[in-house]
């Protein structure tokens, strides 16, 4: 748990050199990857950790007594401990449940904690800027049990409108919000929301899918109850996610998926679930993916998440100011212009050019951005948009990526202008 004890060093050029995919050529140009908000790229350390695992240690976990089975189990549980330390979990690894991704984490939260705790009329308070992963499971639960799903509105300056928070918290049992919007880049005041939620007798869940790789995450300091994130957005592999839950809450949660690995006993008349996090991990888990996630955590700790946050901030300030000065009146930034509490996810609405066309022209320059609604349709509707073109940074991004983005944007605008 020695957060901060590691010697860290950050050099974005070195990070870039560590990522093999960033050497790729696309359409005759070096790739300019600005889609880390959708999925980050993997440093060699992550790819090699997974290869080494398959070459040397692969076996099923928690079963065999032989050498490699023990090693595989140690790898798997070692990843859990690394994740617990990374987010400063007060109860350590026993609070870390491995899932497939953030979406599965929210489904687990809704189906297990939600379905067993909430009764008709109870309120889950989410926000208008949530990803569908933090909306749809609550609607499903509402349709099955009669709970209410309420939304914190988003203000015209792309922030949560908390002016009526006391009123909104009426009858709320869970506040479930994103720490950083995957569309706007807005970083929300999670500590403040946690205090308000607890004051109203509610728990708080946090969608950290974006925030986890844009700065440090400390669940103790934030004083939250649940935290969900995905490995592949933090330099790790796909197929592995986390639901961290405060131990006192986790104890009361029933299993969601049933099967092997999650039981203490199975008889002809029923079953007894396993204790601890094992009861949420039915079936053979994605073992190599946890090894990859562990390597990603180690890698990020080596960079220092404070350094990563500073770098992200610097890139964001630079990109926003250049976009504003070069494209005033032609490109609208759909997100806060104020760079305080704002991360490197930049949604663009280009005057007269549809986001799909923007992305298509950008591809010609090897620039990878995401067009679409970014799985946040209520938010898009709030701002009268069908889609945006979104550029997002990772720890390996450089200002030169923004150079290419601006060059390609100019070409897109002149093509359609």
């Amino acid at each position, binding site marked *: 748990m020695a957060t901060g004890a590691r010697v860290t060093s950050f050099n974005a050029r070195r990070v870039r050199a560590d990522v093999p995919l960033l050497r790729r050529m696309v359409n005759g140009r070096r790739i300019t990857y600005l889609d880390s908000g959708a999925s980050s790229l993997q440093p060699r350390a992550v790819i090699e950790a997974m290869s080494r695992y398959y070459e040397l240690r692969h076996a099923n976990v928690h079963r065999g007594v032989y050498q490699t089975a023990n090693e595989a189990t140690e790898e798997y549980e070692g990843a859990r401990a690394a994740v617990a330390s990374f987010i400063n979990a007060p109860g350590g690894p026993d609070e870390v449940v491995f899932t497939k991704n953030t979406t599965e984490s929210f489904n687990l939260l809704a189906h297990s904690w939600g379905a067993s705790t909430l009764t008709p009329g109870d309120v889950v308070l989410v926000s208008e800027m949530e990803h569908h992963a933090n909306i749809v499971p609550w609607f499903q639960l509402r349709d099955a049990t009669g709970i209410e799903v309420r939304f914190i509105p988003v203000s015209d300056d792309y922030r949560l409108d908390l002016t009526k928070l006391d009123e909104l918290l009426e009858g709320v049992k869970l506040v479930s919000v994103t720490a950083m919007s995957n569309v706007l880049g807005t970083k929300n005041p999670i500590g403040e929301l946690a205090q308000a939620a607890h004051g109203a007798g509610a728990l708080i869940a946090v969608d950290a899918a974006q925030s986890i790789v844009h700065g440090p995450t400390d669940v103790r300091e934030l004083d939250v109850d649940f935290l969900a994130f995905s490995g592949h957005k933090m330099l790790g592999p796909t197929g592995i996610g986390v639901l961290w839950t405060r131990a006192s809450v986790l104890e009361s949660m029933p299993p969601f998926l049933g099967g092997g690995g999650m039981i203490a006993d199975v008889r002809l008349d029923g079953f007894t679930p396993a204790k601890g996090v094992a009861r949420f991990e039915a079936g053979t888990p994605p073992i190599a993916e946890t090894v990859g996630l562990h390597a990603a955590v180690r890698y990020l700790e080596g960079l220092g998440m404070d350094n990563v946050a500073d770098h992200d901030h610097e890139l964001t300030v630079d990109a926003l100011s250049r976009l504003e000065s070069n494209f005033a009146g032609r490109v609208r930034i759909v997100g806060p212009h104020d760079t305080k509490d704002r991360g490197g996810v930049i949604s663009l609405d280009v005057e007269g*050019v*549809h*986001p*799909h*066309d923007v992305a*298509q*022209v950008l591809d*010609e320059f090897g620039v990878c951005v995401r*067009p*679409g*609604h970014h799985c946040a349709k209520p938010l*898009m509707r709030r701002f009268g948009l*069908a*889609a945006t073109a979104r550029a997002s940074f990772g720890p390996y991004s450089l200002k030169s990526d923004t150079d290419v983005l601006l060059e390609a944007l100019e070409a897109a605008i002149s*093509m*359609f202008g």
Partner: protein
Amino acid sequence: MSNLENLYREIILDHYRSPRNRGELATPPAHKVEGFNPLCGDEVTLYLDVHDGVLADIKMTGHGCSISQSSSSLMSAAVKGKALEDVHATIDTFKELMTGHEVALEEHHDVEVDLRRLGELAALQGVVKFPVRIKCATLAWNTLRQGLEEVAAS
């Protein structure tokens, strides 16, 4: 010509900037049909005035990318005032153009005829090289076919 220039030909950009047959028709007598592309949020609404076996008039509203909007516009210009069987034949030919791979297109003995029959619509053939954009180009056409089927059934 680069793939990109082939995709965004002048005729496509022209139809995107100045879409033809934009607007609404009174329903009834016209039939209204809507098409969506849930992936990218593109929308097209068609108003079809069909009588005596002829698509006498067509108007449309909607929003989306240059490919979906220009395809709608080009389509409306191509099918307006045509006999329904010609409209269906045009839909078939266009969809064939969209599904045909490059090689198949080159080897297809009727390609010349097809392209000629498509007229301005042939400008959309560059879309084939961008598989994810094919659904943009075909949105209006699928919506038109659905609308005509609804008219036939009523």
